[in-house]
């Protein structure tokens, strides 16, 4: 269980997050959504202990402020929004960096399995810097997977923190990666993902936290959070949510959106 209580974050003169409470359960994919600059990345950085914060955050009952880095690294992997690398590493060498923290069995084969999982089998010998943005992002995901391959170790769940994992991917690989995150959760691990694509979020997330101006609007199932009113307020445009007739989930179309203020005015 990941519990963040009354989180506040100041960056410079900017109060980026205010009294934000957020929870994520193992076995579930928890999404963080909200407009640009609302504080999603900052929340994720607080959850992974990268920024100073007020309030308390615990991961599997360990206070993340006092848990040593190597211990955290054994239980959770973090995928940043992008990862430029200075030196000419091959894809295999990048993925193997994930093994630094790894306690997984079969270390020699793991990088290859992780690359296959993100649909990059055969890319081992390519140079990281010579890949496209979407390919680089998937290589980094494979590296993180290498770090925490088994979703559950000794009865304790492990965690994936993903900042916009599908933002630079084509639709096929978006589905691959979301399915992978979903399977990781279903196998008992915990997944927290910052998302921009609300349809993919509705399809795959078990819980969604909607953030606006550094505060939580609501955290609940996608069906409850994705309502016309809350989305329109948060995103500042009129949005209509529809029920899909075939799948038992919600979807929304930009076609039905119009710019301008939503039903209620922004606070």
């Amino acid at each position, binding site marked *: 269980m990941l519990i963040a209580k009354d989180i506040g974050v100041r960056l410079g003169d900017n109060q980026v997050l205010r009294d934000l409470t957020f929870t994520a359960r193992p076995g579930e994919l928890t999404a963080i959504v909200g407009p640009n600059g609302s504080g999603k990345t900052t929340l994720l950085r607080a959850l992974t202990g990268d920024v100073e914060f007020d309030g308390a955050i615990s991961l599997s009952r360990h206070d993340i402020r006092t848990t040593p880095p190597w211990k955290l690294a054994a239980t959770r992997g973090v995928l*940043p929004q992008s990862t430029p690398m200075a030196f000419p590493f091959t894809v295999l060498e990048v993925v193997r960096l994930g093994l630094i923290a790894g306690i997984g069995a079969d270390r020699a084969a793991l990088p290859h399995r992780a690359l296959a999982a993100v649909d990059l089998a055969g890319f081992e010998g390519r140079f990281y810097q010579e890949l496209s943005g979407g390919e680089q992002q998937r290589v980094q995901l494979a590296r993180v997977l290498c770090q925490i391959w088994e979703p559950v170790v000794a009865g304790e769940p492990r965690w994936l923190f993903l900042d916009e994992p599908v933002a630079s991917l084509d639709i096929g690989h978006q589905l691959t990666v979301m399915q992978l995150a979903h399977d990781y959760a279903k196998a008992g691990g915990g997944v927290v993902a910052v998302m921009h694509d609300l349809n993919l979020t509705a399809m795959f997330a078990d819980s969604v936290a909607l953030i606006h101006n550094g505060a939580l609007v609501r955290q609940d199932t996608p069906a409850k959070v994705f309502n016309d009113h809350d989305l329109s307020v948060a995103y500042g445009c009129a949005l209509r949510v529809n029920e899909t007739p075939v799948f038992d989930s919600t979807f929304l179309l930009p076609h039905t959106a119009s710019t301008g203020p939503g039903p209620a005015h922004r606070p």
Partner: protein
Amino acid sequence: MAVADHIMPAATQTQGDRAPLARRLFWALSVLLAGISLFSLTYGASDTSLLAALGDWVQGRELSLRDRVVLFDIRMPRLVMGVLVGAGLAVSGAVLQGLFRNPLADPALIGVSSGASLGAICAIVLGGYLPARMADFLGYYTVPAAAFIGAWAATMVLYRVSTRRGRTSVATMLLAGIALGAMTNAMAGMLIFIADDAQLRDLTFWSLGSLGGATWSKVFAAGPMIVLLLLAAPLLSTGLNGLALGEAAAGHLGIPVQRVKNLSILGVAALTGAAVAISGGIGFVGIVVPHLLRLVIGPDHRFLLPNAALLGASLLLLADVISRTMVAPAELPIGIITAVIGAPFFLWILLRRRGILDM
């Protein structure tokens, strides 16, 4: 790069795993270093030859006093010093580049060596003013210790100035290095102004760097420190590998980032300080050697650091042989040779990877 072009396809064949290649290279470079060492003992301004001396020794003949002096008091300490300085500069370059996440960081280029020189010059010129008891205590180590402090201060200032939120700006780093170099040179100039003649002779070689003044006492003053640090450097490999992903990502891998950074800065300062204390500011070894190696075996510091030590030592010995023989019986300061080779190399890196400055 003919060598790189030749070896790269093999690397891709093994599917991105360059570790076996790096291990083979380690043995090849060991042999190379041994060969160059023998050559450097044999070859020099005087006609004394190691082989002839060995032959004499096997046949039980006494070595002539002249041959003994040339071999054991001139060439041998020079050889050992060349190996120590070459390995030290190459490894500190590799560590510095890992720390700054940038292939252009070179101890001589960004002012770390100037800091060390300034410290050493302070020790030479102002050493007489030290309390006698302290001077006795430090002994041979006065100059290396002062050089270390200078190098450490310079590295700290550089890191502080050029790193914001875990990202190092290369442009800032190079510019700060220029400013730092100018400042230390000016201060060194003032010190030289008040130096006496004997001190001046000591000082002239700092500006260019030379192995010419090699003596056993210099080797013993800096050698143990350099050997210790060379053996300890591989402990930083994993941390530096993680840092290549950026500080935050390295932390997520469980690497104690702050400790790795502090140890790297201390290690680089001590290695550069010790090397500069006995040989002056020999430039470009720290940038050329790791860069060449990365082309062949990749950036993994577990393999880069040991190979850099071997290749750095070999190349510096080679440059030394050139510097001793090109204008024999006089000799060129070795710093001139490394600069003549290294500066165009640096330009070549810039040409190939202009984008590097924008990172």
